[in-house]
């Protein structure tokens, strides 16, 4: 089983999607995340083992990304490989046989249509074992609040790329605080920083996707 975790983790970390995929060149013609996950389930490996493999792989690539050792394309390929495994896990997640660690509601704030950062964070958090509820771009505060109410105990992540939409981020954080005071709010995006996070009363500022995943893992473990 250790072996399967490691094999899945290696495919995710390196972005080896399936056997056909030419990337990475040094894994050419080898089985990818797709084949390894399918074979494991066929051999009655418990599905949560596959999830552990995804988490380990995404954690490794996430750390490398925060250290500037890899860049966005590598992170995207890792997420794609992870998604191949997730396709196999979908029935188990839906039946409840495999449980998510929690839920993460994410969107870009009102007025902001830029979603690359949001997508990277969503992928990384998904790889960390959380269910993602992606509200997309230009999300009004009311929509965040409605979704939080439908998903009690969820985390919420707000993204802004523009300095001008930071004001809307502040309004959304305030509105979420007013209506759902217990919700843990994460913020991120190019113009956002720790000072701003403290000023607007969000719970966590994440400079990169991995730090957000680590924060949510800590929080959901109750430490």
């Amino acid at each position, binding site marked *: 089983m250790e072996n399967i975790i490691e094999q899945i983790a290696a495919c995710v970390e390196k972005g080896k999607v399936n056997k056909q995929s030419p990337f990475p060149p040094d894994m050419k013609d080898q089985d990818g995340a797709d084949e390894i996950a399918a074979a494991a389930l066929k051999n009655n490996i418990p599905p949560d083992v596959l999830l552990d493999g995804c988490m380990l792989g995404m954690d490794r690539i996430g750390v490398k990304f925060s250290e500037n050792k890899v860049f966005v*394309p590598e992170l995207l390929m890792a997420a794609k490989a992870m998604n191949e495994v997730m396709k196999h896990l979908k029935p188990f997640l839906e039946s409840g046989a495999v449980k998510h660690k929690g839920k993460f509601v994410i969107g870009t704030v009102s007025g902001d249509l830029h979603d690359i950062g949001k997508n990277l964070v969503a992928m990384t958090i998904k790889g960390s074992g959380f269910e993602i509820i992606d509200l997309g771009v230009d999300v009004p505060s009311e929509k965040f609040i409605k979704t939080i109410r439908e998903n009690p105990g969820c985390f919420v992540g707000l993204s802004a790329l523009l300095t001008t939409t930071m004001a809307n981020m502040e309004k959304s954080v305030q509105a979420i605080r007013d209506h759902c005071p217990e919700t843990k709010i994460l913020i991120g995006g190019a113009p956002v920083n720790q000072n701003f996070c403290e000023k607007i009363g969000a719970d966590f500022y994440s400079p990169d996707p991995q730090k957000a995943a680590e924060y949510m893992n800590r929080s959901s473990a109750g430490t």
Partner: protein
Amino acid sequence: MSIEVLTIIGESINDSVPSTHQLFEDSNIEGILELAKYQDEKGAKYIDVNIGLREPGFMADLVKKIQKVTSKPLSIDTPDIEIAAAGLEAYQPELANHQKPILNSISRLRLNMFDLYKNQPFIPILLTTEDVNENGESVMNHTAEATYNTAKKMMKIAEQSMDDFSNDQCILDPGIVPIGSDSEGYFKRLMESAARIHSDPDLAGVNMSVGLSNFTVMLPPKCADGSPVKSALESAFLTMAMPLGLNMVIGSVKRKYRILEESHPAMQCLSDILQLDGFDVIVRVMEFYS
């Protein structure tokens, strides 16, 4: 500048550039003015000024101070109409060889910015990447046709709003996205949008500009062999886009933009990407720098 016919709007004075943000935070106006002077000396034709979310009065002061150290016209960069109004009002064309400032930028959601034209005529950058739907909400354009249609509409509105309108007094921004995450074919659509705009006789003479540095954000600085990633891909982009009417960029005066041979690896990379879809684009970009 290595490409004579390319107009560079110097991008450095922008609150979203971390080092510049720090200058703003430290109230280091001298540092900001140095950026203006440096970009002027290095060949920028316009100096972009983006102060982020600061007060309109700050924009007005900064415009006045920058105009004391450069005779290049400015590009007032904000989506906020009050900051734009303050910047335009403070701007003195006579200190810039009687050239108009650029207003960066006007989108379908911000058409009221044209109201500022009567007090200070400007050259608008018209965003064509977004439009408004029937509910008045902003939506991204996801096809070249939609982008082109928005361009036509924006030019029509500009014509009605500017006294001395002519196509060459407007700049269309067809939108550029980072190539390193372009699994949805934005680059392909950008080239198609530019081609459609360029071939429309009604739009003859209109300027086209993109925020070029966006193209290569989130990529490593160097290829595995030590050659630069960003200037190569940006130059390849210019080599392909300039024949389609792109004649301006908001960009860096430090980058050595140049026209590349077709055999250059960066040119081959972008040519291949025009034929690829989805994650194959990402893989091809990685292949370029690996």
